[in-house]
Structures are given as C-alpha cells and as structure tokens.
C-alpha cells in the first residue's frame, strides 16, 4: 500500500509542469554562467589567484572547478526558491484545488497521507540536486578540460585536488546539497500544512530562510551563528576542506535532520487538527 501511495504521489508531482520550472531555471542559469566564465576576464583572474599561491593554473581551471563555482550561487539563490515552490504546493495546492477533500473522503489517515507526500517531496529534492550537479558538471565539461580541481570559498575552504579525488568529493557534496534541499522543502511543506495558499507557504519559507541569512550576516549575531540555517547549509562546501572537519559536518547534519523532523511534526500536528472544507 505504501509503495502504491508513493508511486501515485510521484505521478501527481512529476505530472505537472510547474514541477519542472526549477530544472529549466537551473539549466538556463548554468549556461549563462558558463558563457560568462568563457568569454570574460574571470578565467584570467582565477589563474592569477592560483599562480599567486604557487599552483600551475592550467592544471586546475577545469570542468570540476567550474562546476563547483557554478553551484555556489545556485545553491544559495535558486535551490531554496525552487524547492520551496514545490514544498509549498505539496499540501496547500491540493487543498486549494479541492483534491485534498476528495482524498480525505477515503479512509486513509491524514498522518499517512502527509508522510507519503513528504517522502515524495524528498525524492523530488534528491532528483533536483542530482540533475543540478550532473548538468553543472556536464556543461562545464563541454567548455573546460577534465583536470584537477581547485575549490576556494573565503573563510572556509582553499584546496587543490586531483581529478579522481575531486570527482569523489563532488559526488559526496551532492548528498549534503540534497540534505539542504530537503530541509528547505520540509520548511515549505510545514507551512503548506497550515490553512494558507500555496504561494503564501512558499513565501513564508523563503522569508524564514532570508531572515536567517540576514541575521547570520549581522556581526552582533556572529556568536549565535550556529542557530541559523545557512551556517549548517555550508556543510556541502566543507566536504572539500583539507583536513575534512568531520565534527563540524556531523554537528550540522544532526541539526539539519532534527530541523526536518521538527518541521514535519509541526506540519502534521497542524494538519491533523485542521478542518478541511471547500
């Protein structure tokens, strides 16, 4: 029964066009960025930075390096937007369209229905990140050679890696990016369980994230930065650090998992007590 429910939720999710907006936007953004990298001074500036640190620039301006650089702004800007768009739809859109009332005239429990929807949302988040990561690498490979990897994020990571190690860490970072996407989706999903329009649920989730980002960047809150989600979202970049800060990574993963579960439980509690009316 569970697999049948999940299969149907996936049909519903992947059957509608708006689910694919995020995929399309990512592909467009990636190609725009690649053109910028290729035909502006970006490449020469990066070579200067590498050579200033004693590395042979030509060995590290590669598909892997460019793919990671492309992912950084997309993870910060586009990933929250498109995962919260889908997360906000999961329950609220069905309530708005009236199909939720049709479903809840059946004997299925509300908790089970929500759980299946949440799992389907997580699968979407995984697929979105997978496509995002694969497309970034593929497109970068079309324009740049397959060589060593250089990762630089101010204050966090400065590392150069061989192509094999770089690819291994690139794949591992996708797992942590998926976790970020699942957290954002769970947040939007939680708001979606309240009696509100789908757009409102998406906006609430984005506002929450934006507030986190703003507060974390205010110097006064520096000592409280562990209380803000963006601090933990950076785990996917720390994977590239040498040595790998596993305690920092595990700590953040624990916080993100706890956040997901809390968001689901709050959403489920609200949904359970709601009156579903036309």
């Amino acid at each position, binding site marked *: *029964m569970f697999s*049948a*429910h999940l299969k*149907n939720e996936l*049909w*519903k999710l992947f*059957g*509608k*066009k708006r689910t694919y907006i995020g995929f399309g936007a990512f592909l467009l953004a990636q190609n725009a960025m690649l053109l910028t990298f290729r035909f502006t001074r970006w490449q020469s500036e990066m070579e200067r930075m590498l050579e200033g640190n004693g590395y042979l620039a030509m060995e590290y301006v590669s598909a892997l390096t460019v793919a990671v650089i492309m992912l950084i702004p997309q993870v910060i800007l586009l990933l929250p937007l498109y995962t919260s768009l889908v997360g906000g739809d999961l329950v609220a859109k069905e309530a708005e*369209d*009236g*199909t939720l*009332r*049709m*479903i*809840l*005239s*059946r*004997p*299925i*429990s509300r908790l089970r*229905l929500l759980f299946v929807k949440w799992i389907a949302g997580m699968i979407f988040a995984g697929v979105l990140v997978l496509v995002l990561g694969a497309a970034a690498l593929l497109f970068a490979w079309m324009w740049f050679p397959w060589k060593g990897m250089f990762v630089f994020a101010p204050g966090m990571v400065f590392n150069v890696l061989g192509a094999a190690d770089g690819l291994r860490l690139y794949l591992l970072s996708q797992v942590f990016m998926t976790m970020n996407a699942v957290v954002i989706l769970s947040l939007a999903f939680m708001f979606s369980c309240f009696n509100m329009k789908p757009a409102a649920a998406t906006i609430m989730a984005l506002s929450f994230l934006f507030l986190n980002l703003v507060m974390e960047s205010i110097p006064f809150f520096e000592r409280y930065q562990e209380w803000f989600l963006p601090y933990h979202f950076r785990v996917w970049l720390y994977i590239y650090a040498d040595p790998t800060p596993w305690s920092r990574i595990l700590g953040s993963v624990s916080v993100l998992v706890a956040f997901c579960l809390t968001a689901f439980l709050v959403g489920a509690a609200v949904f359970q*007590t709601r*009156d*579903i*009316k*036309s």
Partner: protein
Amino acid sequence: MIRLEQVTKIFGCRPAVDALDLHVPTGEIYGLLGHNGAGKSTAIGMMLGQVWPTAGRIKIRGRDVFADRWGALGRVGAIFESPAFYDYLSGYRNLEIFASYTAPTPRKRLLEILDWVGLSGREKSKVRTYSHGMRARLALAQTLLPDPELLILDEPSDGLDPEGIHEMRRTILRLHCELKVTILLSSHFLNEVEQTCTRIAVLKQGRKVFEGGMRQIRRRDRWLRVRTSDFKAAVGGLTEAGLAAAGTGEGMIVLADGVGPEAVARFLVERGMPVYELSPAEQTLENFYLALMDAAQNQPSG
C-alpha cells in the same frame, strides 16, 4: 447506516451545526435540504472525518468515524459540488490514484467502472479535456471504487446542464436499484430530491427542523388549498386556533394533527371570511419546504 448524535460544530463563536441528531437507515435515498449556510456541507464534512465536531458522536456503518476511520469509511464513496481532479493526468490515472487511498484496485475493475459510467474510450484522455458532464461521470466513477455500501453526494448536480441533471438523477436511481447502496443526497434542487429521495431532513441555521418520509410530505389529507378574501389573516387565525400547522404564500395550509377540512370551513365562516375554494391538494416538496422555512422563521429562536 449513518447516525449522528447531538453533533455540534462551532466555527469561532458561530454554530454551523447545532445538536444535530440524524439517522439514515440502510437502503434509503436520504435527502438533506437547507438553504446556503444551513450546515449541510459541514455535517457531511463531519461524516467523512474532514471536519472535527465540537461535540457529539458520528457513526457510519456502526463505526465511529474518528476512532475507526477504516471501519467507517472503507466502503463509502463521496462526491462534492464541482468535483476536483488532477486535470493534467488521465481519467484512468485519476481513478487509480483515488482508488489507492482505499485499497489497490485491479485494472479490470477500474475499466469496468469506467464502462459503467460511460467513459470507456476516453479513459486515456487528460481530465482537462473532459466536459462538465464527463467530469461528473468521473466523479461518480471514483465513488464506486470502494464497492460502496454508502454514497454521500453533496450537490452532485451543481453546475450541470438540464440534461446532465436528468442523467445524474437517473444514475442515482440506477445505483440505488442495481447496486443496493444507501445514498445521502444533499441538494438545492428540490425537484431532484422529490424525484429521487425516500426520506428527507431539512436543516435551518444548523438545526434540524424536519425529518420524515416523502410519503408523509405528499399526504393529500394534510394539505388544503384555501381561497379566501384575506389568506394571510386566515392562516394567522387558523394557526392561532390550532387548526393549521403552517401556511404557504401560495394559498396552501398544512392541517394540524387530527383536524379535518370541515373544521377549517367552519372557522372561516364563523369569522365572516368568504370561502371561495377549499380543496385537498397534492403537496409538492417545494411548497412543503417553503412552508417549513416560514414556520421556522416565525418560531422564536433558542
């Protein structure tokens, strides 16, 4: 089949349903009537476990809807006004999705149901291409998925053209006759209720103001057509004297229990009111309903 005991639902400080007792016996086509906001949809929402009652108990098929959802709703189908579907999916896929929330349904059974409602050949088309009538048939099909013992139909003819309404009425009777299902029908169309239902309840402002069989409503001997010089005064006098239970604006009165037409004639003549006509009348549901609403309006609240 359905039993509501002292069910109350309060939204904010407004009671939508107030101490409602309702019993829908097995095998009936039971009509639920009332004006907009009378509490019909809220009552149906509570029957399906979608709306939490503030007080009272609701049982379907002998099982409490909130304590044993599977037991209560396992063989119940429901249609709401303007049924909603996943328009971007096919009719067949929609049925498959709704079926899964009760129990996995074999493909053969889904196709049988589509055939029964007359959607064979269009099952692979996306629902967005369906006409209003086809959507209504698909809605009906999804109610039949759990092999139902009870159908709850909330304004099923809403938005249909006259042919669609006629077809829906025929289908309801066919379902009752061929599949022996109990049906609860909430509708604004008094004509539809009159032609299909065997028993009705009337709600007004969340309270039940009438419950009885259609035969009881149609009883000729209780309704009189009265034509006199001042019908309103006549009804007032007759009601005050305990001879009439209610009157309509169309020259009809409902006789009080145990009162015959001769008592009405005598009363009017004694008051000096000319009697131009006094004849028994076949009461329509519309007249009955309007009289009931008038009577409920005139009753002191509380």
